[in-house]
């Protein structure tokens, strides 16, 4: 049995037929071939699969694609506008917040969700917002600085 869902991903509207047990992660990676979203455990523990659903960070390995019916989803591929990096992406590059990079998409998106609702977070709020994503390379301090610098950059440009 398959079901049909309507889902907006990175601004594009899709109608997808899928098995009811398909996760959002499987839909993104296997059907839409958006492989920037990673998987590190499949159990909602490492956060590598974080995407934004209605602007909120979600472990896409734990969410059924069917539950995202009618939702607006943003993945890392949706952050670049007309070839230009999002200020967060630029800050991650400039501040050296990237090592192996496997957690980078999830970190960037978790930070985006934070800055969208709280443009001037204090350090503790940034740590809290990023604490669902594991970085084994241990780039945390540089990632925190990158988020601070993106917030700063966005404030100045407003």
């Amino acid at each position, binding site marked *: 049995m398959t079901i049909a869902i309507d889902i907006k991903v990175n601004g594009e509207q899709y109608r997808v037929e899928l098995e009811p047990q398909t996760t959002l992660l499987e839909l993104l990676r296997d059907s839409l071939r958006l492989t920037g979203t990673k998987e590190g455990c499949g159990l909602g*523990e490492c956060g590598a699969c974080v995407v934004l659903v209605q602007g909120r960070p979600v472990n896409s390995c734990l969410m059924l694609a069917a539950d995202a019916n009618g939702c607006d989803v943003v993945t*890392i591929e949706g952050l670049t506008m007309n070839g230009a990096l999002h200020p967060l992406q630029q800050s991650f590059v400039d501040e050296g917040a*990237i090592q192996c*990079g496997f957690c980078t998409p999830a970190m960037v998106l978790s930070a985006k969700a934070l800055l969208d609702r709280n443009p001037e977070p204090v350090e503790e709020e940034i740590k809290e917002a990023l604490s669902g994503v*594991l970085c084994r390379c241990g*780039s945390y301090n540089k990632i925190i600085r990158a988020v601070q610098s993106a917030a700063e950059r966005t404030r100045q440009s407003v």
Partner: protein
Amino acid sequence: MKTGHVGRSVPRLDALDKVTGSALYGFDIELPGMFYGATLRSPCSHAKIIHVDISEAIKAPGVRAVITGKDFPFTFGGSIKDQPFLAIDKVRYIGEPVAAVAAETEAEAQDAVERIRVTYEDLPAVFDPREAAGEDAPLLHPDLGEYTRFGPYDVVPGTNICTIRRYKHGNVEKGFSDADEVFEDEFSAHSVSHSTIETHCAAARYEPVSGEFTIWSSNDRPHRAIRELANAVGIPINHIRLIVPYVGGSFGGKSTLVAEAIAIALARFTKGRPVKATFSREEELTATQSRVAAWMKIKTGVTKSGVLTARKAEVFWDNGAYASYAPGVALRGGLTVFGPYRIPNLELDSRLVYTNKMIAGAYRGYGTTQVTWACESQMDMIAHKLGLDPLEFRLGNGYVENDRYINGQVLRDVGLKETLEKASREIGWGSGRKRISASRFRGKGIATTIKGTVTPTESFCIIRLNNDASITLLMSSAEIGGGQKTVLAQIAADTIGVPIESISVQNPDTFVTPYDHAVASSRTTYHMGNAVRSASQQLREKILQVAATLLGLDCNRLSLAEGKVFEEGKGERMHLDALMSKRFGGKGGEILAEGYYTSAGSPLLAAYSGLEGMSSIFWMYGTHAAEVEVDVETGIVKVLKIAAAHDLGRAINPMTCEQQIEGAVVMGLSNTLFEEFILAGGRVLNDTLSDYKLATARDVPDIVPIIVETRHTEGPFGAKGLGEPAAAATAPAIANAIYEAVGVRIKDLPITPEKLLAALKRKKVAN
């Protein structure tokens, strides 16, 4: 020569791919017609395989192949050829692969695995290396003496001792009698997981006609991995192509055939269709590899004024069921137990012992983290007992320029003292214990470390100047996260005299990119950096010769900078792209240069006769100073700050150096305070990241990376290495700070609240 890129924090070449999600990792590989692999793993620690019934599995939907060790009856190993691809006749740890399935989907493969029935006959098992070393212990490898060995590993046939290393210098008994005090302590450093966020994964294709294998995998040493495979199955190296996409972290964990072994064995039976094996997090935590756990007895003699007179050390290393790269840990890692100190009389007995547990192998630091834990904890205990300042005690005994290493190698470019001084200054050394509240106390601690690099080893590279003046660097140092591509491009750009933007650094492909030993042992910047430097110098000379011919000038009057040829006294004469089109006309062509570096034969390796093998082409020194806050009611340790000073020779890219230092501090802190396998016999009970806790953004202290540059005489632009030593000093620095804060000494890692509370209670009772 203008050096525009070296020494600058050039943004990483891989950053754009990674921040946009377009970077392809081993995990992302999808191939046409690909099957998915799944593995049936042993539920027994040690057992004979009596019968494997695959009849139900082979009939299951979507299944193409079901195989056991009998179908692919080969063994492999990076150090000792002791490990089957799939268990043959016997299993030696819980989690060992017994059978594997290739099916159309991952779910179908998993479903078929559950239909395989195996009958085992249990054998007695042994889990503690100290017991396993005994004569009556159950034997894991009765044929140990007959296995092929790929290094000077002294096995003891008829026992579980996989490697034994003894080293003596001077006379320890005399040294102890010269001492005013002799300290004898036991320490242990536990097994920890690499826990890369990208789990092990590999895709393999076997071409039935030519007999060639193509493998796509996240692996940090592709050329040695294919040699392992070639040695195992008896085919030439040019029949094995290993392609390494981006690697989602390694830390030593992706150094041998892990997921590769399953994918390769299955691919042999799928008639040319590729098979991909992706490990689950549970497999990652229970059935890959771990750090080699160590039990260390250290006896150290010292005079009242704080001069070390002798040290005797006995180390037992837990190998797990197969050797992997642990024999090197026991060999080279064991020697680091003497620390960066002048000790005239030494004795080491280091034994690596097989046990019925998950395989232990290479892990960031390669043995150094374990022995540094023991050495630096005891150094602190000695200083406190003798009433010496732990910093002064270390400075007084620590290596300085032209001291001799324990094998007689003369040490040059020794930045140890500077790391001690800078790290301690940054932490505010000497301000002592502070009481913050009724239950919270603060203290500071330092620990220092020395680490060499595997010597001698080789690196090769090829640089292509393409027809349009763009440059392609071909080499096999995988980008595992350390910034390898960027640092090597910086070295090439400055040596050739071109902008870094013109250089593309390719990912490894063993059919195309030449041999490199490994991205391991903190060796890449130095070794591959030297190979790249050599190729770049050749390319520069070739370019200038072409320019001289085209311009009708003497080559000596010409120079190359930022991609342009300059004539002495005249200025700019020609762009590189113009040079290439003039040289080759409209038809196209390229200029090639090859680079090679080996540390073999360097005069720097000279040592006492017969002991040159213990020399290292460079030595790295590092000191970590930590400030912690301990709550004596909860036993919880909060690390407030770590200042980490590292002598890395020269920072080619200060930003990537900071990344290595900060990252290793976080890993060290996580290993020390949070991570521990909970074992029931040989079974790992905590097989999820909820139960095996890694440090998060909320656990990270203020980290101050401090770069010390001593400029190595043979290193590229003076560089040595970095990635591993920064992992070693964190644990003892934290333990030493805890001691200052609350006066208790934890000798067995990890440092948990339970252990601290128990120690505090014992101290209270004793008082």
